[in-house]
């Protein structure tokens, strides 16, 4: 926790990310290559879904990371509003579009899985609708943070939305238990452990690791950009 506090200084974060990013980028490429090989070549067809199970290797990690990304936004929102953490606003601006893309990929790949499996691209069940709401929350965060001439006002408004919207995360997670949904219940993150065969679970977890690394790399690159953008804006105002 103390080391995280040290990184609150944007200049220090920048020096840290410049050291770490090349290693993380290499690890992302390597793990993604292994994950894609396992997902597309090595893993067997599912006994019910057949080859369509391969869509799950993108869809499920995208959903996890879209939710984790929003939890990150809420944490950054709290850090900004409570502690005026200097890096929090910049990192939130960087992370929101990344989370939005992960949510969009989750929705679109889920839709492409639904057509052959359920016979429809979309149903308004609780899981799908709450996931769509998450995507709109991301869009709202992006729009709010850019809606004011004064960037700090935009950052604070977006932080409030992030904190209010975090209530949607347990709704997404437990929607399949609370309501009767077409979407299947949890099969990986549940009490009693995963109910998926290791031949399917292994590529899923490797792809999840690859997409997590990609998420981190994207947020770090974009945070560096936001730090420099703020410097540029300050220089322009000073002229």
């Amino acid at each position, binding site marked *: 926790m103390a080391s995280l506090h040290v990184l609150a200084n944007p200049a220090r974060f920048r020096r840290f990310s410049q050291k770490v990013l090349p290693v993380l980028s290499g690890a992302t490429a390597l793990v993604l290559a292994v994950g894609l090989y396992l997902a597309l070549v090595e893993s067997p067809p599912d006994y019910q879904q057949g080859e369509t199970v391969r869509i799950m290797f993108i869809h499920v990690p995208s959903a996890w990371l879209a939710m984790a990304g929003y939890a990150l936004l809420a944490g950054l929102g709290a850090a900004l509003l409570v502690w005026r953490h200097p890096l929090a606003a910049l990192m939130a601006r960087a992370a929101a579009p*990344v989370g939005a*893309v992960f949510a969009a990929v989750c929705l679109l*790949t889920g839709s*492409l899985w639904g057509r*052959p499996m359920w016979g429809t691209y979309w149903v308004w069940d609780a899981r799908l609708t709450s996931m769509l709401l998450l995507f709109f929350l991301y869009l709202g965060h992006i729009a709010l943070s850019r809606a004011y001439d004064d960037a700090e006002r935009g950052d604070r408004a977006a932080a409030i939305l992030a904190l209010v919207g975090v209530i949607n995360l347990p709704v997404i997670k437990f929607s399949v238990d609370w309501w009767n949904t077409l979407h299947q219940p949890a099969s990986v993150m549940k009490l009693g452990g995963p109910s998926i065969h290791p031949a399917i679970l292994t590529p899923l977890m490797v792809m999840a690791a690859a997409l997590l690394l990609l998420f981190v*790399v*994207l947020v770090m690159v974009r945070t560096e*950009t936001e730090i*420099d953008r703020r410097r540029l804006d300050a220089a322009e105002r000073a002229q």
Partner: protein
Amino acid sequence: MSHTPFIIGAYVVALLGFGGLLVASLLARRRIKRELGHRGLERR
């Protein structure tokens, strides 16, 4: 119904989404660095 187009479609969506965001992020990074350079604000 053949499931292959749906599988290919899902991977294309992921490639366009993640790849597009990565390229856009790197281009934005390069643009800002260049702009800072023009103003003599680049960091050592």
